């Protein structure tokens, strides 16, 4: 598998872990200018750990949907180029602003990922990647509605949370349904369950059709 430039496996406390270079955010261990990327706290980190080829190369332009308090997006901004971080809830967005203040190409936006028209005047098109981690029902719809930001050869790297769609259904059934819906606008390149890092989550990589 290929990690993007700027993401490396390094040893922290005798354990090999993913790491990026940037200011620390959540008390993670550091090694010189490198800081550990905790796959248990980050679905994208887990996606790399599981060996999916995300198509991310380093220096990519990224739209990150569901940035929350900025844990993962801080690592993305470390290795990527311009990174637009969309988060809907005010409280985590406050921490996200703090993360953005320490980085030069991270743009925080307090917006609803289900309403791309509210940020299409800020976020540019032809982006290299959309990273999606939104814990709401209708995760496929979010991906489809934000497809307009993606370049023709761009990548959708999403973590689908089964319990956000239907808590009573079998996760496998939920994932099948989400993937089926995604086919309307995306070609699915790869999928992988994120256990043991995250229960009932499916990582997927797709490109626009």
């Amino acid at each position: 598998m290929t990690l993007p430039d700027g993401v490396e496996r390094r040893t922290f406390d005798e354990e090999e872990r993913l790491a990026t270079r940037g200011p620390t955010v959540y008390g993670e261990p550091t090694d010189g200018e490198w800081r550990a990327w905790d796959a248990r706290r980050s679905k994208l980190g887990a996606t790399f750990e599981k060996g999916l080829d995300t198509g991310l190369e380093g220096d990519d332009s990224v739209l990150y949907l569901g940035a929350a308090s900025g844990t993962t997006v801080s690592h993305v901004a470390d290795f990527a180029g311009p990174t637009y971080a969309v988060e809907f809830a005010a409280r985590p967005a406050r921490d996200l602003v703090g993360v953005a203040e320490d980085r030069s190409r991270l743009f925080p936006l307090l917006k609803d990922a289900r309403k791309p028209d509210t940020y299409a005047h800020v976020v540019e098109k032809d982006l290299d990647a959309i990273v999606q981690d939104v814990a709401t029902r209708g995760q496929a719809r979010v991906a489809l509605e934000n497809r307009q930001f993606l370049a023709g050869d761009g990548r959708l790297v999403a973590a689908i949370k089964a319990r956000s769609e239907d808590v009573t259904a079998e996760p496998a059934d939920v994932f099948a349904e989400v993937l089926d819906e995604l086919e309307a606008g995306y070609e699915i390149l790869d999928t992988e369950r994120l256990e043991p890092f995250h229960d009932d989550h499916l990582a997927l990589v797709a490109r626009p059709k």
Partner: protein
Amino acid sequence: MSDETAGAAWFEGLEPGDAAAAAEHVRDGSAEAPANWPAAAVDAEFAADEDAYYDVLREATITATRAAVEEAEGADDQQLAHLVRAMDDCTRTANELAERVAEWAGSRLDEEGSGVGFARRVAAIEPEDAGEERLLGLAQRVADLDDEAEALRAEIERAAPEIAPNLAALAGPVLAARLIALAGGLGDLAKSPSSTVQVLGAEDALFAHLRGQGPSPKHGVIFTHEYVRGTAREHRGSAARALAGKLTLAARVDHYSGERKTGLDDQLEARMERIRARTGDGDAGSDDGPDDSGSDDSGNGGDEE
């Protein structure tokens, strides 16, 4: 920001260096589709090059988002408590005055009726003398109070999801506001055990029970929730306990994290289906049908049969 710029780039019509206006455009603007904004900004001579553009964009998004966060967090739980108390006062007073209007109108006018709707009809009559003018004036106050209650409800429906997104989603905005008001604030509600939340608003019945003078109340204001009221009587205790449990969790998430967790909705829904399935009367509730307006009758909601 003016309407003309809606649908355009955030930097359109912006003086370079006007940071406040830039942040406002980022917050309130919109566009139907994205474009290559960095290149467009350079073309429009808004920025010298792409790097300069991103520097300004960074400044604008950080300022805009910080301001939006502060505004959202300033929306405060105590205001919500005032809103719901004011709404209840307006409704109660409107009903009281409507009774007075009905009684008075019955003695003066040909019309008879009752309630706020009747008062509205009276208010619309052309007065014939000074005494009638006073009656009509009183009827008009009833209509005004009722309008105000409605406006307060609309404001609660707008504000509650901002202040307590999970609680508002599970309980509905008005019940969420009532629970916050009864507990004394969102923080207090978050720290309450679920057994307390279950009987908030049924304090009279609860203390009577503690004095040994009555059964323990099954529910307080949460009685107004469809999941309690719409469940068959013999299962309402279970329904109220399950609902209170999830509402408590929702209040804690709202207070400590503020993120919307849709999982709670689903868990509650699943739990309710199981409770209601016990007798197979999934959507019972016809045995008892107060309309959805009041919590008044639920204050003593603990009465056992």
